């Protein structure tokens, strides 16, 4: 396994998917191009471009190295982002923002008290900036904030 093998296979997959979907939408005729024409040919071109990369990747001995990456941290950050989006509307801006910030401050080893204080300040500050000043419609929770 090396970088380019993964990359080329991924994009080859995307290309096949696009071409099949485009074909299903209908290519139309050259005089009256259909909605699928552009996606189909886009997929074909992407696929053709992936092939040389795939061939080159198969002939190199270089190996994919992913050691030293803090997958847990990255996963937690991605999870926190997803959680924020899922709970924003049901729980309201203030609570979700506080929890989100608190988790992330803690993640990079800020102390409990300091994390709580920063989160509180940042939540209040962002609410003032976006809610009051820029008049963004920030969702309220069942408790009204």
């Amino acid at each position, binding site marked *: 396994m090396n970088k*380019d093998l993964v990359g080329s296979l991924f994009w080859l997959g995307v290309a096949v998917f696009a071409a099949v979907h485009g074909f299903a939408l209908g290519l139309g005729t050259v005089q009256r191009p259909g909605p699928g024409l552009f*996606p189909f040919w886009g997929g074909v071109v992407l696929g053709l471009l992936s092939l040389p990369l795939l061939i080159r990747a198969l002939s190199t001995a270089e190996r994919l190295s992913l050691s030293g990456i803090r997958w847990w*941290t990255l996963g937690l950050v991605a999870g926190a982002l997803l959680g924020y989006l899922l709970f924003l509307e049901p729980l309201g801006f203030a609570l979700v923002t506080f929890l989100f910030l608190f988790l992330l401050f803690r993640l990079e080893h800020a102390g409990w008290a300091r994390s709580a204080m920063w989160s509180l300040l940042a939540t209040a500050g962002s609410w003032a900036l976006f809610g009051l000043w820029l008049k*963004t419609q920030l969702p309220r929770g069942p408790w009204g904030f």
Partner: protein
Amino acid sequence: MEIFQGVLYGFQVALQPINLLYCFIGVFVGTLVGVLPGIGPAAAIALLLPSTFAASPVSAIIMLAGVYYGAMYGGSTTSILVNIPGEAASVVTAMDGYAMARQGRAGPALGISAFGSFIAGTLSVIALTFLAPLLARVSLSFGPPEYFALMLLGITLVTYFAQGSMLKALMMASAGLLLGTVGADTISGRQRFVFGIQTLADGIGLVPVIMGLFGISEVLLNLEQAGGRTREIFASPTRGLLPNREDWRRSAMPILRGSILGFFLGILPGSGAIIASFASYAVEKRASKTPERFGTGMIEGVAGPEAANNAAAGGGFIPLLTLGIPANAVMAILLGALMIHGLQPGPLLVKQAPDVFWGIITSMYVGNVMLLVLNLPLIGLWVRLLKTPYQLLFPLILLFCLIGTYSLSNNVGDGIVMLVFGILGYLLKKFDFEGAPLILAMVIGPMMEEALRQSLILSAGSFTIFLERPISAGFILAAALLLILPLITRRSGVAKAWRSVPEESAE
């Protein structure tokens, strides 16, 4: 005298108190973004876009444009003081600028980059003033085939100037074209790649994609390795900022050359400020009598590239304002911003919305003056900001991205799109693919598809229409040459030179 009247009118618009305020906010935020590594101008403009919905189109664009050229100023400060370019366009500035700072000459380095940026910014705006209306008139005669050919050339240029492999850049461009087709087809109304997902019905939003690719993924990259980013700030720079007579003598020609080079490279799609600064550095090194001393604190190596990246920021507006085609990711969002405000950028803009056209151009003169006044006294503040620990900064960047996308349409779906593209952007960087060609192709894609289909309808299905019309044939030929050239020879020195840009700062 039409241009003269236009400029006068533009100043009337740009100097209105409300527009002065927006311009000030723009350049201030821009400098801030330029100073802080981890968030670039593209993500910052995308973030600010929703906050301009209530403003008039002129004010909105004046502010967003200010962020862009303001970031070019801010980026140099961190390059010189801490050897960390806040912006990719300031990577070369670090080479000699930081060396100057180590010799205790941080002041003159900061000073010459601010003055050089100001002079170049002003020169490029003057050139823009004269060239833009002219080009707008020429492009009025463009039909769908010319537009299609021009956009094809644009995308080819982007991949040609790509940092890494051109093959991968071409793949990214094709993927971007595919992403651009998501949503309802403009001609038949059929849904493409939607699969019942409501958020995708109107196409994938540009703002969430940019915030994901350039905002979220950047944070993930910074977090992937353990160990905080500790930075040591070198000199106390707040005194002696003015370059001396000798500095000026040595910098005059580099600033002039950098301005011209930067302006023209800025016009070309895909190259923009980053390439311009690298090209200028290479030119100065060649022009110098002592090229071996570059990298040891030569003021020419600061003045030239700093002038070039600012001039390029101005030049980048030309294709946007005259053809409606964005030259880089930042221009792509500005294009989106104009359209959100009900304006169609292109040759008709100067006629249909002269206040916007001339207002933007003249606001850049005003903005450049503000930046000069803002930057020199505030360097102390920027230095203090740089000391903000990343553990405090990154949750706030993420939060701003979340609120920014949510406020676009009060829809969580856009946030999910941002998250997906954030993860994709992280993986793309891990696997040596670049985001810029993808973004550009995604924006240009729908316009290109429409032009292609209109052309084919015009010609009753004959592809020769693109070769029968001289202008479009010229564009196609140029694109073909760019594609074939790398197969025969190696890519140009410029494209090669800037492959040494540290990857994490490539946007």
